[in-house]
Every structure is written in C-alpha cells, then in structure tokens.
C-alpha cells in the first residue's frame, strides 16, 4: 500500500490565525451594525457567539476556512429533504434544547446524559478540518468540539467493546422523509471501529465558526471524522452504543456496493459510478481548478497506521 506523506501546505493556503480572528471580529461588527440599522439590535446583541474564544487545537489545519454561508446552505440532511436548500430551511424546525444522549452497550457506566452536563466535563477546542463529501466536493470547516475518545473513556469501555454505533434523532413529525419512510431506514445510524473512535482527530462537534452548531449542520451534537467521507459524520446524535460486532450503517445498508463501512477518503478507490480522484473546494471561486483528492483526505500521516494491514480496495 502506498501511503502518501502529508504535503507541506503552500503558504498561499495558510491564513494567519490572527488575520482569521480579526476577520471574524470585522464580520461580527458588520453584522451588529446592520442589525442596529434594521432595529433588531437588542436581539442580536444577546446572541453573541457562544464559543468565540475557544482555543485552537494543535490538530487544526492552517487553512482558509470555507465561508460560513456556504457551509450553512450546502448540507445533505436526507431526513428533511434530498435538496440541499430545502433541508437547510426545514431543519430549523428541529428542537435541540434540551438534548440528551444515551451511552450504552459495552461500557461500565452506561446512562443518559444531558448535553449540558457532558459539555461541562469536556474542554472545547476549535478544530479546522477538511471535510470531503462522497459527492466530490469539499470544504474547510472550523468546528468547535471535543474528542469523542474523551467522552468514551469517561464511560469506561469494556475490553469487549470493538465498535461504536451512533444513532441520530428520530422525529418523524418534524422530519418529512422519516415520516414517509423513504430511501434510507430511519433513524440514521453510523459506526466506527473502536480505534477510529478513540483517535484524537475524531470529534464530537457542538459548533462551528465560534458559535453553536446550525441545525442543518447537525445541531446540537454531531460526529466529525475528517479522513472519512462526510456521510460518516452523523448528525443530531441521541445514542452512542459500544458493541462487540460491527454495527449496520445507513448508507451501507442502502447500497452496500457503493458505500462501505470504512468510507475512508481515497482517490484510488472510485465510487462504482464516479471518480473520487478530485474534488471541488467550495468557496474557492469560479475559475479555481479542482483539487486532487488526497488519501485519507490529507490525514494519512495521522491515521494510515489504523489500516496498515488492510486492503483498502476491499475494505472501502
């Protein structure tokens, strides 16, 4: 197996963190100004970004982040709609506060916890990660979150815990596609091998761009696994189960020949119907060429070891 080493990031792709933070201040100031002008100042003033000052993780990539309007308006959320625009609109109906998460299965301390209580025990950090969709587009997203491993360790996994299964919220009254029971089997479920779940890059995200997570992006709690295709990053998690056997996952059940359990970003393994060789980096402008997709989405240096004895053509 050929493992590409991580290329040095060209200086042109690096945003100075100070510039980045400054830019945000300017944007916020502009938003506040416009809000005052339109007479909704007091409301906005109370809505200051919740996690504006979380420290940046040392796992963060020094990349220019995709504009938040693009991240917030280009989402796949099939519980609501197959259409990216409609799912953004419809997702606003989902109640996300209060929220609780069940942790169960092969752990010493199973239980159901309020998200607020979980957050009190975790240190939030900003993680700027590349995000690559199986549809051959990508973004750079400044997530706010904490390592999934830190949460799992608190629940004390048994030695029999080999996999982790995640389940999304089931709310057919609010999610039209769940009500009609179309395409995938609901609720959405995903899974990771335990070593993937414990990897420091694997996040549970509660926000992005220094603020709480927009609903269409998976509020209040979503998984982020930056070296895998986006569909692994399950949204609106209500249940985390540790198991002995590999869990079934939504897209894998729908089309096992097309969406594997691992779903590692890999330019050398095309989707059966389209190439994964390159991607369009959204927000990069009309006349910017596509970028060539990197093995493990560029995180090979950190994660290739997890798969060193595996045939990635077979375990795709």
């Amino acid at each position, binding site marked *: 197996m050929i493992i590409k080493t991580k290329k040095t990031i060209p200086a042109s792709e690096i945003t100075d963190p100070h510039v980045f933070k400054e830019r945000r201040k300017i944007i916020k100031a502009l938003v506040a100004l416009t809000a005052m002008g339109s007479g909704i100042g007091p409301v906005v003033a109370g809505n200051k970004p919740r996690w504006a000052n979380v420290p940046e993780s040392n796992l963060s990539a020094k990349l220019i982040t995709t504009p938040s309007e693009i991240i917030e308006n280009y989402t796949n959320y099939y519980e609501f709609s197959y259409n*990216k625009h409609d799912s953004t609109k419809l997702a606003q109906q989902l109640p996300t506060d209060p929220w609780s998460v069940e942790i169960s299965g092969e752990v010493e301390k199973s239980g159901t916890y309020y998200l607020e209580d979980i957050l009190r025990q975790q240190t939030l950090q900003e993680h700027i990660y590349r995000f690559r969709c199986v549809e051959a587009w990508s973004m750079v997203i400044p997530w706010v979150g904490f390592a999934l491993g830190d949460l799992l360790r608190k629940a004390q996994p048994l030695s029999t815990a080999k996999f982790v299964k995640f389940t999304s919220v089931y709310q057919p009254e609010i999610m039209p596609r769940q009500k009609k029971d179309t395409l995938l089997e609901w609720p959405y479920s995903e899974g990771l091998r335990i070593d993937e779940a414990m990897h420091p890059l694997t996040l549970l995200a509660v926000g992005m761009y220094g603020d709480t997570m927009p609903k269409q992006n998976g509020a209040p709690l979503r998984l982020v696994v930056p070296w895998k295709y986006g569909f692994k990053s399950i949204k609106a998690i209500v249940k985390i189960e540790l198991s002995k056997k590999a869990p079934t996952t939504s897209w894998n059940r729908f*089309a096992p020949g097309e969406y594997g359990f691992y779903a590692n970003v890999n330019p050398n393994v095309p989707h059966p119907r*389209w190439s994964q*060789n390159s991607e*369009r980096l959204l927000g990069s402008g009309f*006349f910017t*060429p*596509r970028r060539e997709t990197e093995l493990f989405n560029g995180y090979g240096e950190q994660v290739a070891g997890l798969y060193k004895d595996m045939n990635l053509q077979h375990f795709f």
Partner: protein
Amino acid sequence: MIKFNQLKPGILIACWIPLLWLLLDIILDNLGGNAVQAVHIRLGDWSLRFLCIVLAITPLQTMTNWRGMSEYRRMFGLFTFIYATLHLLAYLVLDHYLVWPIIATDILESSYIWFGIAAYLIILALAVTTPKWVVKLMGKDWKKLHRFIYFAAGAAIMHYFWQLKGNLAEPLFYLSIIILLLGFRLLLSFKNRVINRLMLPKGRR
C-alpha cells in the same frame, strides 16, 4: 389567425432565455455554494428539456394535423445540441479547467459520463447533418440516422440517473415524459400496421 410561421422569431428568442437567465444568475451570484455544479446541472437540464420538446413534436403533429412543424423540430434539435455543447464545455473548462489528466481519470472512472458521451455523440451527428444539402445528399439514410435520437434520449436519462446518490425524483420525471412520447410513437405504428392489414384486399398478402 396568426400563422405559425410568424411565431418563429419569438420562439427563437425564447430558446436563448435559459442561457441569459443562467448568465444573469452567475453575475448576481445566485447559484449557491457549488456554483460550478449548478451551471452544469442547469445546462444539462435544458439540453434534456429541449430533447423532450423535439420528441413532442411528432405526437403534436399527429394529434393536431399541424403541418410544417419540421422547421421547429430542426430548431429545437439545434438548441438541444447547443445546450449539450455548453454542458460539455462547462465540464471541461469550468469544472476541470482543461486539466486533461484529471479529466481522463474522471471519465475512465465515472460510468455515468459514458452515457453522457454516447448521448452527445449522437446529438452531434444529428446536428452536423442538419443543413438541407446534407439531408438531400443522405437520402433515406438521413431518416435512419435521425432515428438515433431515441437512443440519445435513453442515454441522456441514464446519464442523469447514474450520477445521483439515491434521490431519483427528477430523472424519473423526465424518464416518464420520454416513455410517454416514445410510447405514443409505438402505439401509432402499431395502429397503422393493424389498419394497413385490415385495408389490404384479401388474397393479396
């Protein structure tokens, strides 16, 4: 009553509207997060729509006994070709920036593109045989060649279906229209055959 021919300039202008509308959306930045893909989809959609219009002309002619619609069929056929060409150019230039190695890999690995290429080659062949002198030159072969439009329609629909993740509502919509339009022809030819057989004098089979 207005003669159908008088409508021609208006229809000709109308056929360019989707393109102007797209250019306006590009200028106004109305195409969302993945603007390049949106351009693509828009052009592909319009090519498919013009193809449906072309296929609708024979049924319309049969039902209304309108004559002289072949002029319009030619025009709509050429617009199918124009939008398909723009769709192809958007793929090569806008999406892939003419980076040929990436384009080559993409085409080799993406089976849905093969259907698109098949549809385009047929439409290209039909477009270049449009001039009247070519029609004359080709004689009966012209009609045979232009029957390939049915295959182009099938390939275009496959091209649409085959690149989607699971949300098939839109290609199914176009598929049903094309099935309807082709089904009409099948029914008609079946009906004609039955009538012909009934009309033949006995003993002369």
